[in-house]
């Protein structure tokens, strides 16, 4: 949001045009012929406030009662949409680029013998002033008091005549204005592009240190993290100091500081972290008991087998990609759909397993053994990453796993020893019991069906195992934990074990996906495992249906370069239209709000509704009896 506001500001400052953020409306409206610094800043502030209120009303207010996952998905959708708007409507190259006139002066000044530019000092001062102002507002004004009252007890505040929703809207506006101003002011230092990297992770670390309560503490922590990063670089590169050993990746270490801070704070604070925006308890979509497993399995395996030997190379590749992505989606189903945990590190697990499998087969370990060993390695890392899950949940868990995913990416995946760095590694040809199951071949024979059958076999076994898991005691325990941790614990379920178990199974599946990926490409590059991929995997699985095996398979079909996209591209003869990301962003937001059960959930509802209407429900299937006699409110409705 801040990025859009900043782009709009600079465009307005130069041309007086307001570039609209809504697809379908005209691109720009001319407002002023000679904008000044004052009018432009006023414009930016009003725009940011409006945007903040709109996002609150249209996206996050309807999601108050939804799961943290739904909000993550909606936020991802919003990000995709706004990023695409910026990319489509603000030129970044060529003659149409507008100059970015800095707001603050940037002449050098000397402080304690070191030269810095004025804008840095002014920016720091600005941050401190804003923090002081916010503190004052929230301490001394009626609005601040009301907001804090609503925080303390929402229902009580409601009874006192305070409207928490309106306050939330105002807070959204303030946050949005601050974000916009921050991006505008920091532009001379940090630059601005559709993919502008705000240092949001360090910012978040700072906010975490302040427990999301104290503006002053957050400001101090933010400045401190920045200083620590600079000092670290200084120590690392000065030839006369040896504080940091040379073999450690310097820049990876800098990135790691905020990640470590976030995790330490999360674990130390445990579940004390505020997560109170929801009015009622949030439920994940129902997880139906798998039915008709045998006919589905036989049918799908038969269809895919026939397809593998009959269709052309392009569709064969699409099938293989869909099957591999299906495994990743399956890992999301196990973790999120069955046990209610969120992980944004799934693709990082896959990456570790993929490169590990390449290294193992290079050392002449047979392919099937490497497949299992590498997936076990992913499992170990998955359990370690899942450790914070025993202390935190929901959005905080998502953040913790995200920070760890970044750490894995920066320190493990990018390491030359494992992945050979950016150049990537090529996997040796895999053999299964002496049969060549490699994917590559010359000409039309490329993407050999043998590799497709390997993927089909692995995916089928994984799906059967997951379906079975849902039906046996372990799965029921996870569902119980998902529905209500305290109730589950009271019923004698070891919550920690259940959560770590889910992380283990899920990361093993992600590991399988990573290994198959490694052997399906000519060269495996760490870029294939950037953290955005994990987000997309979670979002796609959510869209398809996060709580059933069918959802995972459908997510595979929807995957990039998968069956659906390939079919559409072949049919239209070109690749997807210009606005496809903006539209898929909107689809994600809509799904988060109106269809938390995903596409498979909608289909199932349609299929079962006539039956439910004709015959009255015999017994509520909301409670599943666990063999040891307790009842798990597993959310099966």
């Amino acid at each position, binding site marked *: 949001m801040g990025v859009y506001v900043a782009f709009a500001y600079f465009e307005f400052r130069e041309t007086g045009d307001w570039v609209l953020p809504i697809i379908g409306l005209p691109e720009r409206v001319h407002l002023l012929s000679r904008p000044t610094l004052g009018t432009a800043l006023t414009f930016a502030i009003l725009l940011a406030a409006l945007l903040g209120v709109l996002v609150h009303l249209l996206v*996050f207010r309807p999601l108050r009662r939804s799961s943290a996952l739904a*909000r*993550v998905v909606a*936020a*991802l959708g919003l990000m*995709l949409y706004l*990023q695409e708007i910026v*990319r489509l409507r603000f030129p970044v190259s*060529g003659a*149409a*680029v507008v100059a970015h006139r800095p707001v603050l002066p940037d002449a050098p000044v000397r402080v304690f013998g070191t*030269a*810095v530019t004025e804008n*840095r000092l002014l920016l720091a001062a600005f941050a401190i002033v804003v923090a002081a102002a916010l503190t004052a507002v*929230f301490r001394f004004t009626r609005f601040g008091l009301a*907001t804090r009252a*609503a*925080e303390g007890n929402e229902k009580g505040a409601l009874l006192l005549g305070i409207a928490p929703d309106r306050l939330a809207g105002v*807070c959204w506006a303030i*946050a949005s204005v601050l974000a916009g101003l921050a991006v505008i002011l920091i532009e001379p*230092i940090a*630059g601005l592009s559709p*993919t502008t*990297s*705000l240092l*949001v992770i360090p*910012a*978040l670390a700072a906010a975490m240190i302040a427990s*999301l309560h104290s503006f002053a503490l957050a400001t101090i922590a933010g400045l401190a993290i920045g200083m620590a990063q600079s000092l670290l670089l*200084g120590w690392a*590169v000065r*030839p006369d100091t040896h504080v940091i050993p040379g073999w450690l990746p310097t*820049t990876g270490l800098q*990135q790691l500081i905020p990640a470590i801070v976030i995790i330490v704070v999360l674990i130390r604070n445990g579940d004390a972290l*505020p997560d109170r*925006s929801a009015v009622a308890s949030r439920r994940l979509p129902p997880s139906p008991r798998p039915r008709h497993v045998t006919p589905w399995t036989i049918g799908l395996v038969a269809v895919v087998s026939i397809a593998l030997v009959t269709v052309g190379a*392009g569709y064969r590749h699409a099938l293989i*990609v869909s099957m591999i992505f299906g495994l990743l989606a399956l890992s999301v189903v196990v973790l999120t759909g069955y046990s209610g945990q969120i992980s944004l590190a799934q693709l990082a697990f896959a990456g570790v397993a993929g490169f590990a499998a390449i290294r193992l087969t290079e050392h002449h370990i047979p392919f099937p053994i490497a497949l299992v060993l590498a997936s076990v390695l992913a499992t170990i890392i998955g359990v370690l990453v899942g450790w914070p899950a025993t202390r935190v949940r929901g959005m905080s868990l998502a*953040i913790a796993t995200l920070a760890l*995913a970044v750490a894995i990416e920066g320190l493990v995946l990018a390491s030359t020893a494992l992945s050979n*760095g950016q*150049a*990537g590694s090529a996997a040796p040809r895999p053999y299964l019991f002496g049969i060549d199951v490699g994917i590559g*071949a010359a*000409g*039309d024979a*490329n993407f050999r069906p043998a590799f497709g059958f390997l993927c089909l076999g692995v995916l089928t076994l994984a799906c059967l195992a997951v379906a079975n898991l849902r039906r046996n005691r372990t799965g029921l325990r996870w569902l119980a934990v998902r529905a209500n941790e305290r109730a589950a614990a009271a019923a004698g379920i070891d919550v920690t074990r259940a959560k770590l178990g889910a992380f283990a199974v899920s990361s093993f599946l992600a590991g399988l996906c990573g290994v198959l990926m490694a052997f399906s*490409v*000519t*060269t495996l*590059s760490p*870029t*294939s495992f*950037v*953290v*955005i991929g994990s*987000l997309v995997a979670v979002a796609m699985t959510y869209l398809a249906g996060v709580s059933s095996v069918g959802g995972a398979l459908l997510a595979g079909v929807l995957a990039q*370069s998968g069956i659906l996209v390939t079919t559409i591209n072949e049919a239209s003869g070109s*690749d997807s239209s*210009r606005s496809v990301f903006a539209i898929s962003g909107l689809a994600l937001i809509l799904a988060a709000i109106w269809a938390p059960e995903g596409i498979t959930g909608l289909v199932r509802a349609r299929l079962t509704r006539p039956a439910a209407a004709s015959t009255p429900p015999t017994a509520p299937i909301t409670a599943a009896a666990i063999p040891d006699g307790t009842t798990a409110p597993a959310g099966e409705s």
Partner: protein
Amino acid sequence: MSRTANHIANNTANNAADRTGRRRRIAVVAMIATAAIMALSATACSESGSQESSSTTLPSTCAPTALLDCARQSVLAPYTPASATVATGTPISLGMINQENTVAGSFPELSLAVKAGIEFINKEMGGVKGRPLSLEVCNTEFSAEGSTNCAQKFVQQKVPAVLGGIDVFGNGIDTLAQNGIPYVGGIPVSSQSFSAPNSFQWSGGSQSAAVAFAWYAAEQLHAKKVSIVYGEFGSIAASAEMGRKVLDDRGVSVQMVPYPVMSTDLSPAINAAASSGPDAIFILAADSGCKGGFDGIASLGIEVASFYVGACAAPGIISQVDASRTNGAYFNVEGPIMGDPPIPDNQLYSGVISKYGNGLDPVGAGTVTFRALMNLYAILEQINGDITPAAITAALEATVDAPNFAGHPYTCNHRQFEGLPAVCSPQQILARIEDRKLSQITDWIDVGAIYKG
């Protein structure tokens, strides 16, 4: 305060998730941009030098009616017909792999420039011996699978050659190599594009830049200490190492200062670099880091020879920095700088783009792919007999000092630049900027020979 806190928390958390992904991708995109604009700077700089706020019309362009006159002055002279000739024979299909319309960046100018060039060849140059060229552009969608898909599609269409655009992954090059199809030109960023046996490149990347800087600093400026500030990522980090080797060979002491490639505030890194009192600083930044480099050096108030990749001389960057901060900075370029008299290849390029480019801005990375198309066109014209992947590969590998469109004559014998066998013309020129005007200060620097030592 719960509302604020919570909403800020949620908002920040979500954005954090998104932005981490973005930051990684920026790294990639930024790296690409560096390589891209480096090669274009020859044309771009000419413009920035001559007129500050230029529009798309260049002073030194060809008139739309006189493109063939320009072509007769250019390296295409041997293939230029006496009058405009439309190609009517069986089309020769070419493929192109590019990254367009993705969240990680879109580079349509690379294919648009090639399309404009093909239209010119088909409508005025009479095609390749009367046969028109046709082009299919395939989008990698920023994934290894997409890259492979594109290559496989072209394998099945049996195209004789595939032009490069931008492809960070390079898996498509592997697939083309399995089928013996040459991958020609583009912005080399993947390791395959630099080293695959079927890849032929006319841009030396940041590697060539670093070697040229090192040679100039050691041999011409007689520097004793050099600091190399570089984005710690892929080919940029490799370039820094190559620069270090050249300096080491000449007894210059080197301080290496990596910074996270996604960061645009280079002050801490430059501060660290300046601490050893160097005679020269190399800033191997992605283009997003250029401004940070200029500002960083200026804010330190130190007088030191500073070297930047050609990307940093792009008009869009230079115009945003106070002229006093860029004065005296060194850049690498991959073609002679347009001056007086104008260079025919560059004139032809801007003429073709303004006539056939559908409004494409000639200042941009399109120069790189346009150059590859014109070099491939010359090769196709030289082939007697069937145009097959093998014939094109053989013709390219047989080149010795062949005329290069707007660049140093090239030799594709896989031995021009040690470790980067695909590079046919790694030679660089250094230029210096004064009052936002770039002027050439060296002749061609034979980077390959210098690096070999």
